[in-house]
């Protein structure tokens, strides 16, 4: 196993009286799709928000390529090569695909127009077409406002924006939730292609079959902590659901909570740092 790309250790976050994360761990490796799953309220969104710089943790350590980092905001995370595809896509529906791709990072013209911060639209359009081609996406009309595109194409624009700038990690929050079967397949293909470029992809999803089909590894959050880490190829939906809900803990009470799960994973060659229930 290579060194972790992005790792969180003992992350704590409180919102008022609610302790959303109580010492959560998380690890993503380069060139890997890792799914982050958990029941509602398990702390997934909080953890992703912390790792992508939206929210600052109360305690705990985050390292990127082994170096400790603390993102001051999403822009800071982006400067470090960490991008996020939000569940609502975060696109400006009235702007075209190229303008959305470069929103906040516009390509500007040089020369005497420089002081006016004039946009270099042809350059942005060319780069956008190329970015979509790399994802295997054909946009019918690059000049159309993205609000007029289909759901799948809008999704592609959001993913392309993250991919174009992510040098290290991409978080994808329920990227297929609103899509039909065909579009869903395309997005998952995209996820694999991005991974093959050596970027770490963190997938947040409720869809267990999808998680097992696209993820290389699955990390499970429950009650604000990582309770298990599975290798997707060796896991079943029942195991994932069991770890999410905690129902697997009970039969193993004699061994101590979750140690049975740990043993299982170890035996299956899963990543050694997961699988503990405490």
């Amino acid at each position, binding site marked *: 196993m290579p060194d972790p790309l992005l790792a969180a250790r003992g992350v704590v976050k409180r919102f008022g009286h609610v302790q959303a994360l109580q010492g959560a761990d998380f690890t993503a490796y380069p060139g890997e799709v890792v799914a982050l799953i958990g029941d509602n309220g398990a702390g997934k969104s909080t953890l992703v928000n912390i790792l992508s710089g939206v929210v600052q943790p109360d305690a705990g350590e985050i390292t990127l390529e082994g170096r400790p980092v603390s993102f001051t905001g999403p822009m800071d995370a982006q400067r470090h090569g960490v991008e996020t595809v939000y569940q609502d896509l975060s696109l*400006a529906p*009235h702007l075209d695909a190229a303008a959305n791709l470069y*929103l906040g990072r516009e390509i500007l013209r040089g020369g005497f127009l420089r002081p006016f911060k004039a946009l270099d639209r042809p350059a942005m359009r060319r780069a956008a077409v190329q970015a979509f081609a790399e994802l295997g996406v054909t946009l019918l009309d690059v000049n159309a406002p993205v609000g007029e595109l289909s759901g799948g194409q809008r999704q592609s624009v959001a993913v392309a924006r993250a991919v174009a700038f992510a040098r290290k990690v991409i978080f994808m929050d329920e990227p297929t939730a609103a899509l039909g079967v065909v579009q869903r397949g395309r997005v998952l293909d995209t996820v694999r292609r991005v991974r093959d470029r050596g970027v770490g992809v963190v997938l947040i999803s409720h869809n267990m079959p999808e998680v097992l089909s696209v993820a290389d590894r699955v990390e499970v959050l429950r009650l604000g902590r990582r309770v298990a880490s599975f290798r997707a190829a060796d896991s079943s939906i029942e195991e994932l659901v069991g770890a999410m809900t905690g129902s697997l803990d009970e039969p193993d009470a004699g061994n101590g909570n979750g140690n049975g799960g740990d043993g299982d994973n170890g035996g299956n060659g899963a990543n050694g740092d997961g699988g503990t229930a405490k």
Partner: protein
Amino acid sequence: MTRSQLPEWARRALRRNEAWTFAILVVLVAYFSISAPGKFFTVYDITQIAVNAAIYLVLGVGMTYVIITAGIDLSIGSVLVLAAVAAGEYTIHHGAAGAGWFTVAVSIVIALAVGAAWGALQGALVATGKIPALIVTLGGLGAALGLAEIATGGQDPSGAAATHLQNSLGYGKVLGIPWLVVLAAVVTVVFGLLLGGTRFGVHTFAIGSNPAAARRAGIPVGRHLVKVYALMGLLAGLGAVMWLASYGTTSIAGHSTDNLKVITAVVLGGTSLFGGRGSVLGTVIGVFIPAVLTTGLIVVGVQQYWQDVAVGAVLVGAVYLDQIRKQTRERT
């Protein structure tokens, strides 16, 4: 012929709202030219229309930016009056009508500064996200007018405009074109290009289109809103200078419906009240439709008050179409 058979440039043109509004304007001009041959389409009428429209155009350019951010500014008439009173009071105490060029220059700077500062203040309040722009600028409408009335006792002071200002910007012409029109055209072109071709422009659209996305993309939304409302105020200040130059008085009571006229023009020009879509070119067309109607109805001998009826009907129709478009997009 279906839409897909049209060439690319034609489809792109049809997608733009300005195309439809422009067609209405062309039809109006054609109708009046044919109904009253040689009367409507004279140099005098065109000049008169342009002079009447110049101040509304300058205000409309600023309002286009504000509405694209999904905001509104009801205060522009009062801000214009406040800026005019500030500039006028300075002029009165520095030579009144006979004031020199230096006084004229300082009074112009005062008008622009008062407008921009008032706009920036309103923008800062809008940017907090706690008070809707409608309420901020409704409050601004009352407060700015009240301050102007306190400063003047509610009476238009005499000597508010220097003769130098009136004879140059007010009545002067260059190559037969009034300076007021030239100034309005320059403002329109400059801020039209700024909106359509720069980072400032695209950020303005993005904020109106999806403020959360704009924020996540690292656009300083609050600071941008302050700039947009300050620009609106600055142009209201410029409108004050143009008004003083043109009419020689502050007209404290004469600007209470400027906001409605300007918002009407901007919306007629295809700028969406929901934000995210619009253009300065559309606003130019939107300003000229009521202006052409007024002149045209007089020329063909119909009571000019029909203009108010026609503009009202077209406005409601334009917003109805906009709403339909919005719903169509949200369904897909």
